[in-house]
Structure formats: structure tokens, C-alpha cells
């Protein structure tokens, strides 16, 4: 983030954008009909499709956020990446093949096909659009923050750049171009995060392998300048001599307010002040699970709730499901999912390295609380500037932008797909209009720079998905007794409960103690609640089980080699 590397960072962003648009245009020549646009004519091979799913899934939360969470919360944050991957195993076990065999394009399609109900379909459409928008907002905001951190551009610029590129690409080529783009983005992201990690580890080794979990809370390794892009309240644990806006002063123990636009210079070896709400943690506590590192309350409950949300929420993310219809058959859908497991597993080995090294070399992110910045800050912090660190930082910026672009475009395809099917007509022109509508709303929400923490908004999307689409899909696929009324009741109760809980958390009204823990990680009670309501209401209305449920079950589970006549 020195002046010299800014130009290089900008070049990296431009290159990623050009490559994305270029591959999108190549795909455009092949896209001809609405069916092409929506599911790439189902002709995508498992490796392409798995790469594409991986590329689409690895968002800003994975590329930047996981390292930040590990840095702040230590061992307990390791469950985030584990859950992000394990969600695909659950998807493989319970959903992948039957969903593909159902022949539906989207979750609302599945709901209508399985339950024969237009109202459940509309309810599901509403949820797809809601979850899609919820997930798009942090992507756009993350892009804005990353562009500002690396090139100094205003926050809105990054959000607008990502929104425009993605809209042009998706509206222009639909899912086929998105498939090529996404597959390319996976490999770009894997390279962009792995190469710098290896160099950083070598440098750490050469540095005499300092203890990653030292007994004391983090200290500044060198004299460190912290630029404050927004006003923060920090907690100082030990009096510290700082140069604040060029004036030497002492920050005493206790809370302090650091104004937006000010610059603080901390001496080497000083304890790092923490932004309020993020407790200082000794290395022992940080490295140990269930220690409540970073100030997390009720860590055992929070761990289980997080596991439930991520394991069960993945299958309910709209941009994840839409891709399964691009497989030629159920068996290919399974193999694709297995491929995704391997690709994601390889990727998620790496962010932890940044989190652990970041605590040692770039602890200043704890002052601003923007721990997401650690990945981009590390090359300079470890290697101390120079062409190598500038090149690595540019590579990371490229990877981060690939993450914003790919996840946003995946979300856009699925949100627009539902809008075009359920709100507008079914033609290619309508798909383009739907795309505009699908991007305009989240951009409008992201631009006023509402301060929604990336990880928490993404967590809300997972919790809502786990509390709505997970019971709908699992019960719909495996249980004959599901009725339209039962599904609707479960979707309404699960969706309302999980949304309310996290909205309360996001506006900061969650209180403390158990209330806060239950509201901040609602999945542990909203998922069982949604399942219970769906089963209970279905049993109560069991006379209305669809008459053709046997035929639907055959359609969902019969292997393709059996040649069957069309249903109905």
C-alpha cells in the first residue's frame, strides 16, 4: 500500500476485469436461447462445473474474511472454513443427485414440481431474491473497501466497478459465460492466495520462526503507522506513547476515541490497542478452542450454531443450487460435488496461514477492527516493501477482485433467473432486464456505506438459508409426507425467526449474555424450529399430500439409465 505498489494494484484490478469480460464475451458467442442462458444447455463437464462452483462460492468472506476471523478469534474461527466445505458434503449426501434429476432450474421450480403449489413457489422465489440480495451487499461493500485500501479510490468506486462488470457480463452471456468466467476465477483465486502464502511462510522461516501463539497479547513488530479511515473507539490495555497527527502523546489505559482521518504512529514493541468489542487475547487463549478469544460469549453454543448454519445453509444458497442443473445427469451432479469438495478443501488450507501470520506481523488491523484487511496488508508487513511485496500484494488484490466478481455474478445469475421466471416473462431480453433489477437493489443498499460487517451479513444469509431451504429440500426429497401447507408454514416460521434474529444483531440491539449468543448465531434453534414446523404442519394436513408423490419420488431417485416416459 505504498505509493509504488498502488499503480501495480490498479493494474491487477484492471487485468482481472478485462479477463472476466474477455472470457464472458467468448461465452457470449455460444449463448443463443433462454435455455442456454439459464443452465448452459446442461453440457458442462464435471471438472468445469466443479471449478465454476468453487469459483463462484469463494467470495470475499473466504478470500479476505476467514483470515481476519482467525486473526481476531483464533481456533474457534477455524470452524468457518470447515463449515463452508462440509456444507458441500451434506449437499452431496442429501441433495445433489435428486435435485438434478428433478429437472428443475431453481429452488422455486423444485418447490412447485414437488408440491404442485404456486404459493410455495412464490414464497421460495421471495426467499431466493432476499438471500441473493443479502449476500450481494457485503460483496459490493467489500470491493469498495478493498479498492480504497489498495489504491485509495473512494469506497463507492469499487462497488460500482464490480456491479457494472458483473451486470454487463451476466446480462450479456448468462450462465454459460458465467461458467467459463467462474472456472477461470477459481484457479486465479487459488493461485493468488497460495503463491504469496508460500513466500510469506518462507520469510517467516527465515525470520527464525517466531512463536505464532506467544503468551502475551499481540504487539507491534515495528514502528507502525495506522491510518484511520473512520472514527473508532479503542481500548488501551497498557499506556502507550504514540504520535497522533504529528503530535507526541500518551494514550492511558482505558477507552480512547480516534478520529476519522487521523494518523497514529505506534512504537515497536507496544501492546496493540483493540477496537471496542474485540477483546485483547493472549496467544494461549487465541490458540485454544472454546476460550472465548476476542470476546466471544458462550463459545460452545456459538461453535455448534455456526456448524449447523454452515453445514446446512450451503445447500440453501441460491447461487450454489442453480449450478446443479448444469450437470448432464444425477451421477454427474454427485461427481461434480465431490470435485467441489476437493477444490474447496485445497483452497481453505491457506487463509488460516494469513490469519496466524497476521497476528504476528500485521496486528494493526485490530486497531481499526477491519481485520478483513490483513490478507492485503501482509506482504508489505512481512517483506517490508520492495518489488516482491508489491507484486504479491497485486496478486492478492487480483484474487480479491476475482472473488467479488465471481460471487456477485453467481448471485446475480440466480437472482435474475428467479426474477425472470416468476416476475417477468421468459425471453432473453427479460433476462437482461431482470439482471438490472437484481443488481440495482443491493447496489443501492451498499452505496450509502451502511456499516454491515461482511462476516456477519454472510452469516445471516447462511442462517436464513439453513432455516428455510434446507428443510424444504431435505424433506421434499426424502419424505413423502411433505405437504404444501407444511412447507409454507416451515418457510415462513424459519425465515422470519432467522431474519429477525440477525437483523436485531446487525442493528446492535441484541443485548448481552445468552440473548446475544442466541440472536447472533440463531441457526441452532431456528433450523430445528423450521424442521419441526414443516413436519408438524405436514402431518396435520396429511390428507393433502400430493397424489402423484410416488411418481415424483421415482423421478427424483431413479437412475438415468432407466428410460422413463415424461410425467403427467
Amino acid at each position, binding site marked *: 500500500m505504498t505509493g509504488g505498489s498502488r499503480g501495480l494494484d490498479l493494474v491487477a484490478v484492471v487485468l482481472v476485469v478485462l479477463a472476466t469480460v474477455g472470457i464472458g464475451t467468448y461465452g457470449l458467442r455460444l449463448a443463443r436461447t433462454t435455455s442456454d442462458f439459464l443452465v448452459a444447455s446442461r453440457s458442462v463437464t464435471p471438472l468445469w462445473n466443479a471449478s465454476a462452483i468453487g469459483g463462484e462460492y469463494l467470495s470475499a468472506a473466504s478470500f479476505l474474511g476467514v483470515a481476519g476471523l482467525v486473526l481476531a478469534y483464533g481456533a474457534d474461527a477455524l470452524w468457518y472454513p470447515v463449515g463452508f466445505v462440509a456444507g458441500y458434503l451434506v449437499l452431496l449426501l442429501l441433495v445433489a443427485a435428486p435435485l438434478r434429476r428433478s429437472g428443475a432450474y431453481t429452488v422455486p421450480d423444485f418447490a412447485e414440481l414437488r408440491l404442485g403449489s404456486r404459493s410455495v413457489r412464490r414464497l421460495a422465489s421471495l426467499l431466493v431474491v432476499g438471500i441473493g440480495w443479502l449476500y450481494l451487499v457485503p460483496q459490493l461493500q467489500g470491493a469498495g473497501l478493498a479498492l480504497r485500501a489498495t489504491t485509495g479510490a473512494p469506497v463507492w468506486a469499487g462497488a460500482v466497478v464490480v456491479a457494472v462488470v458483473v451486470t454487463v457480463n451476466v446480462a450479456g452471456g448468462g450462465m454459460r459465460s458465467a461458467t467459463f468466467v467462474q472456472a477461470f476465477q477459481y484457479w486465479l483465486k487459488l493461485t493468488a492466495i497460495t503463491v504469496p502464502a508460500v513466500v510469506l511462510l518462507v520469510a517467516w522461516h527465515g525470520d527464525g520462526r517466531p512463536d505464532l501463539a506467544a503468551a502475551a497479547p499481540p504487539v507491534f513488530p515495528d514502528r507502525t503507522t495506522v491510518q484511520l479511515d473512520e472514527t473508532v473507539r479503542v481500548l488501551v490495555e497498557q499506556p502507550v506513547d504514540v504520535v497522533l497527527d504529528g503530535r507526541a502523546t500518551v494514550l492511558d489505559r482505558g477507552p480512547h476515541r480516534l478520529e476519522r482521518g487521523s494518523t497514529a504512529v505506534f512504537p515497536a514493541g507496544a501492546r496493540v490497542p483493540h477496537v471496542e468489542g474485540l477483546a485483547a487475547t493472549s496467544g494461549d487463549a487465541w490458540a485454544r478452542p472454546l476460550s472465548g478469544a476476542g470476546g466471544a460469549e458462550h463459545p460452545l453454543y456459538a461453535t455448534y450454531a455456526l456448524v449447523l448454519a454452515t453445514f446446512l445453509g450451503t445447500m440453501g444458497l441460491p447461487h450454489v443450487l442453480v449450478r446443479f442443473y448444469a450437470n448432464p445427469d444425477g*451421477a454427474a451432479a454427485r461427481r461434480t460435488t465431490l470435485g467441489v469438495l476437493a477444490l474447496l478443501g485445497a483452497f481453505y488450507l491457506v487463509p488460516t496461514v494469513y490469519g496466524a501470520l497476521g497476528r504476528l506481523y500485521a496486528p494493526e488491523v485490530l486497531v481499526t477492527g477491519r481485520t478483513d484487511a490483513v490478507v492485503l496488508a501482509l506482504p508489505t508487513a512481512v517483506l517490508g516493501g520492495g518489488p516482491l511485496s508489491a507484486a504479491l500484494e497485486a496478486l492478492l488484490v487480483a484474487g480479491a477482485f476475482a472473488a467479488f466478481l465471481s460471487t456477485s455474478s453467481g448471485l446475480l445469475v440466480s437472482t435474475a433467473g428467479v426474477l425472470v421466471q416468476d416476475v417477468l416473462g*421468459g425471453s432473453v431480453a427479460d433476462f437482461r432486464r431482470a439482471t438490472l433489477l437484481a443488481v440495482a437493489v443491493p447496489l443501492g443498499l451498499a452505496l450509502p456505506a451502511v456499516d454491515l460487517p461482511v462476516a456477519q451479513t454472510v452469516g445471516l444469509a447462511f442462517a436464513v438459508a439453513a432455516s428455510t431451504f434446507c428443510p424444504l429440500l431435505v424433506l421434499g426429497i426424502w419424505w413423502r409426507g411433505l405437504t404444501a401447507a407444511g412447507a409454507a408454514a416451515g418457510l415462513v416460521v424459519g425465515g422470519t425467526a432467522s431474519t429477525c434474529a440477525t437483523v436485531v444483531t446487525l442493528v446492535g440491539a441484541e443485548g448481552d449474555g445468552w440473548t446475544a449468543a442466541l440472536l447472533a448465531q440463531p441457526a441452532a434453534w431456528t433450523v430445528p424450529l423450521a424442521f419441526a414446523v414443516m413436519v408438524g404442519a405436514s402431518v396435520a394436513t396429511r390428507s393433502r399430500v400430493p397424489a402423484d408423490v410416488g411418481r415424483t419420488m421415482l423421478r427424483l431417485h*431413479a437412475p438415468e439409465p432407466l428410460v422413463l416416459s415424461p410425467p403427467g
Partner: protein
Amino acid sequence: MTEPVPRRVVVTGPRSPTVRRPPGRQGLQALDEQTAVGELLVRSLVRAQLGLALRTAGVVALVLGGLPLLFALVPTTRDTRVLGLALPWLVLAVLVYPALVLTGWVHVRLAERYEREFVELVDT
């Protein structure tokens, strides 16, 4: 919705090279016409696949879901060091990923075997 969603054909021509001959008429007809036999066939397939999925999920839930409980109940496991790494980090940051892929691989093999058996059953 201005247009009805077009009805789609469910399952199409034999794609898998494992199918050497077209399926026999009787089993297929039973499936297609929703006879008692066909119903029974489908129910048994769904039960077998669900059983497999739940068994695999059970193993994962027991092993992965048991970890936080293990850390909570046996605090020494939080600090145990293996190969120079703290046990929780070795498991959660490294070993868990190949284990998940391996579990998925075993599941895919078994699920495909159940499907082959179903095809052979119908095919008689």
C-alpha cells in the same frame, strides 16, 4: 408468471456405459404405471439411499460434531501438541479437509453401486 413453466422430460436415454442392454419391460412398466410392485421398488431404493446418506452424515456428525464436546469435556486436548502443531489446529485447519473429500468419495461409490443394483433389479 406470464407463461406456464414448460413440463420437462425427466430422464433420458442411456448415458452410462455400465448399462449394456436396454432395461427389461416388466420392471419398467411396473415403475411407470405406479403399480404396487413399482411403488415397492422405488420405496426400497429411496430407503437404501436415505439410509446410506444418514449413515455417512452420522459418522461426520459424530466425528466433527464430537470435537467441540471433546475440547469442552477433556480440556487437555485443547493444548495437546502433535507433530509440532496444537491438536485442534492440526485437525481443524489441515486433516479435516482430506477427511471430508475421502468421505465424499466413499459415499459416491456406494450411492452409485446402489443405483446399479436398482437398475439390475428393474431390468429383470
